[in-house]
């Protein structure tokens, strides 16, 4: 499968998911810093439209006393049950064995491309593994 041009990087607001349809599939694209992430708009839990959920930096806290902090690691929070999924590899934060489907997206000369046949980080171009 070849990659698809989905627009100019400046059309993507940081942290705001945009939904596009590619080959009959809904994919959510979101810019985070200089990266673009792509995820299938389908939660592996109960099938929610995952990509209409909030995108934010992962909330962490090192010790029990004190306050939480926000990390640079982006997650999307499912709009139904609130499960958090790492945008980079699609894994659920609480249970890494559960995965949302991700796609390789890249920015080349200010154009954003997504490869709907790939999984992010998978350079062989094979079909993505089941969530």
């Amino acid at each position, binding site marked *: 499968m070849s990659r698809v041009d989905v627009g100019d990087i400046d059309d993507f607001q940081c942290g705001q998911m945009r939904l596009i349809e590619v080959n009959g599939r809904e994919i959510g694209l979101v810019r985070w810093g200089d990266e673009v992430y792509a995820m299938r708009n389908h939660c592996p839990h109960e099938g929610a439209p995952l990509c209409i959920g909030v995108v934010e930096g992962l909330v962490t806290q090192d010790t029990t006393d004190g306050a939480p902090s926000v990390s640079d690691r982006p997650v999307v929070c499912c709009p139904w049950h609130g499960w958090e999924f790492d945008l980079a590899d699609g894994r659920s934060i*609480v249970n890494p064995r559960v995965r949302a489907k991700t796609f390789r997206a890249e920015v080349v000369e200010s154009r954003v491309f997504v490869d709907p046949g790939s999984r992010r980080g998978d350079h062989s171009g094979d079909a993505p593994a089941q969530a």
Partner: protein
Amino acid sequence: MTVVDCAVRINPPDDADVARHLPGGWRQFLSKPNAIARGTSATPLYQTRPFRHPDGDLLIDAGNGSDPRLLSQQHLDRHGVSRALLLHDRARLAATNPTPRLSEAIVQATNDWMTERWLGGGDDRLLGSILVPTQLPDAAAEVRRAGAHPRVAAVQMGGNAIGKPFGHPLYHGVYEAAHDLGLVVVIEAGCDASVDTLSSHSAASPPTSYTEYHVLATQSLQTHMVSLIAQGVFERFPRLRVLFIGGGLTWATPQVWKLDAEYHSMRRDAPYLRRLPSEYFAEHVRVGTSPIEATSSPHIMQRYLEAYPALRQVLCYASDFPSWFASEPQAVAATLPPTWVDDVLSKNGDALLQRREMEVTS
């Protein structure tokens, strides 16, 4: 196979036996010398049981749990118990006495009484629990004082004197001291039932009968377990073990599963947790077996327990002798999957109580 029993109930034969350990000022404040036969206090040291079984809360002929020889004859010798954790029975609500420094005095006197009457008699099977005056900011001092005794193995939280779930930071000073000394923390059914507690024994309504009191007693245990895990107590105190007594075999499974499921959605309420709640449960929580639930056949309970394999390392035999619902080791063994019997009756309790002794002898 020898048996380790994680809950045996003890009582003073009368208040005077404990009052001897009170400072003179408190002793006189509570009693009028020579005005009442046998020098018993005019004011009872301990709150009465909030709910009482009409046929008696304790087995008849067991001496009200006040006689070490009867305990040996009727239970320890008879059932091959090699180690038994003593828990205060009617003294357990002392920390909730509404007069703060009096609660402290009574707790200290009770601990001293126990050490003298039960831990000094040469019976190596007996390990003691100490009460803590949890209303007071310096409660941990009593853990360090009374917990220094080499035969004390546990801190018995007793009545919920602060009125918050037991994972609340207000309780952490006590856990820190218990953690430092290698003592097990014991939380028991009925801890929220006193009229002197701000917390409730049951949701929606206080019990309006003994049956309701008995059946709903697991709710406290569930709240406290959830609180300890969710408030990160086991992250903060990584060697702490907490033993829950008085809820039976079946209350923990649905609660642990539920907590795991909700954690998926609300991880951000506890972002300091590094593992699933159920992992903290398996490692840090122990559940005393009493009172065992009756099922129409043992296979039914075995199937229930096997549905959550982690219980094999979590359940610890607890007779609750001489409570009316006390259970003998054979009765408990019959409810268990056969491969679990040795763990539940012996190994888990041994591991739970063992560490204290290692701490002392090293």
